[in-house]
């Protein structure tokens, strides 16, 4: 069973003098749902963007299915991208396109599906995330934040990717909607048999969707384990984070 889907070793990334990732080591097994937690600005989004090749790492290695992805050419990059789906932190829906065109984008552009067929498929995926077919013809700006999250989710899973990234899928949603999104993530990941890497600082969400949790702090993974282990850990950084306390080893720079 245990087969490594994503293997990250010694990943480093800095912006100018500001070191964001400083030797990240992390493995994601095939079919598992890994959640990365960590404070605001610790580089969680940067980590995901490096894995996807949207940012060029300064050093280290990222292997997907045993293939090195750092520094590959564009054709390889495209091939890798066709294995992946991503729910962006801010949604990143194309605001010049209708909802269904957003969802069907990967199907049309990448898998060369005819538009009509792609539309049918998009409507099906939209229904899967709980959106009625009449939403399909609206523009993203006409939707509420929660609906936009669902559309982003639909776009991320429409191409049936092997790996799905979720960047703070529940941030900015009310607790009930957040839980609905959690359920949708679990369903779609399990339904596709995909490998999932989720970023969040919503601990309720993390507990619910994670097989395994890893914590990013000061550019490194300082702890990883299952949800059960999370509650028993002696690691003071993790304890402080999950209890949401301002007292402890993690100092917030104001």
């Amino acid at each position, binding site marked *: 069973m245990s087969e490594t889907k994503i293997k990250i070793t010694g990943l480093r990334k800095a912006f100018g003098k500001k070191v964001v990732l400083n030797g990240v080591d992390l493995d994601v097994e095939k079919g598992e749902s890994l959640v990365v937690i960590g404070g605001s600005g610790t580089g969680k989004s940067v980590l995901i963007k490096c894995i*996807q090749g949207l940012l060029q790492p300064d050093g280290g290695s990222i292997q997907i299915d045993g293939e090195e992805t750092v520094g590959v050419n564009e054709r390889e990059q495209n091939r890798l991208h066709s294995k992946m789906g*991503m729910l*962006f932190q801010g949604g990143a829906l194309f605001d010049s396109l209708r909802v269904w065109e957003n969802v069907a984008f990967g199907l049309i552009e990448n898998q060369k599906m005819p538009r009509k067929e792609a539309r049918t498929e998009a409507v099906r995926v939209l229904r899967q995330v709980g959106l009625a077919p009449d939403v399909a013809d609206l523009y993203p700006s006409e939707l509420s934040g929660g609906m936009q999250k669902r559309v982003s989710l639909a776009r991320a899973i429409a191409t049936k990717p092997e790996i799905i990234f979720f960047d703070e899928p529940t941030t900015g949603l009310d607790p009930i909607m957040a839980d609905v999104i959690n359920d949708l993530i679990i369903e779609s990941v399990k339904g596709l048999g995909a490998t999932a890497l989720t970023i969040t600082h919503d601990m309720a969400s993390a507990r619910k969707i994670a097989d395994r949790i890893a914590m990013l702090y000061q550019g490194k993974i300082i702890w990883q384990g299952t949800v059960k282990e999370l509650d028993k850990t002696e690691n003071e950084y993790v304890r402080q984070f999950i209890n949401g306390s301002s007292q402890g080893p993690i100092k917030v720079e104001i």
Partner: protein
Amino acid sequence: MENKIQSFLQALGKPLVVFFMRLGNLTMFIGQSLYHCITPPFYFKLLGRQFLDIGFYSLPVVGLTTVFAGMVIALQSYTGFARFGAESAVASVVLISVTRELAPVLSGLMVAGRIGAAMAAEIGTMRVTEQIDALRTLSTNPFKYLVAPRIIAGIIVLPLLVFIGDVIGIFGGYVIGVYKLGFNPANYINSTLQNMETLDIVSGLVKAAVFGFIITLMGCYNGYRSRGGAQGVGEATTNAVVSASILILIFNYIITELFFAN
């Protein structure tokens, strides 16, 4: 002394390094853009939308500016130096100044304001809201999808616009010549046709194509590299218009020199 030289060089060095980095970035951007303009896949639907945006919707602005430009040139050249033997002189001055200079330059500047700004704002917003990243994760090259259609449309559409502007500008001169200065219509048209040179028109259209490239390139480039939210997008918009306008005036001179200096 040595310290002074050193600090002088340092003071000089930093902006210089920044300048060359910018220049390098721009060159790479141009290279990538051109490469993706000429290699498939082509997005014909997006190209069509750009034709409409850059071309069709710019017609009123271009028409207005060129008609008044033609009118004012007719009036100026008459009151200035052509009161005697006026028809042929006014007609040819209007013809030459409109086709060589006024139609391309004024249309270029107008379109730069209209389109360059809109492009920078649209692409800049897509950048800061991560839509460009999203394009890439959906295996779509942003240069192909966003930049190439705009640049191709700019290069093709601007000459068409300027050609229409030529006609309208000359018509503006005719209106003033005939209805205000009291020239004989047939004579005026005759002198216009007699003085018509292919080179005047062609040079104007070549300018237009270059301006089309400059406008769309500056719009895309500034939008593409904008950073940091609404403020970044605002800066990109301003930079796109200012840089395109300046480059238009510079290249206008260079192309004129190439065509007519010998």
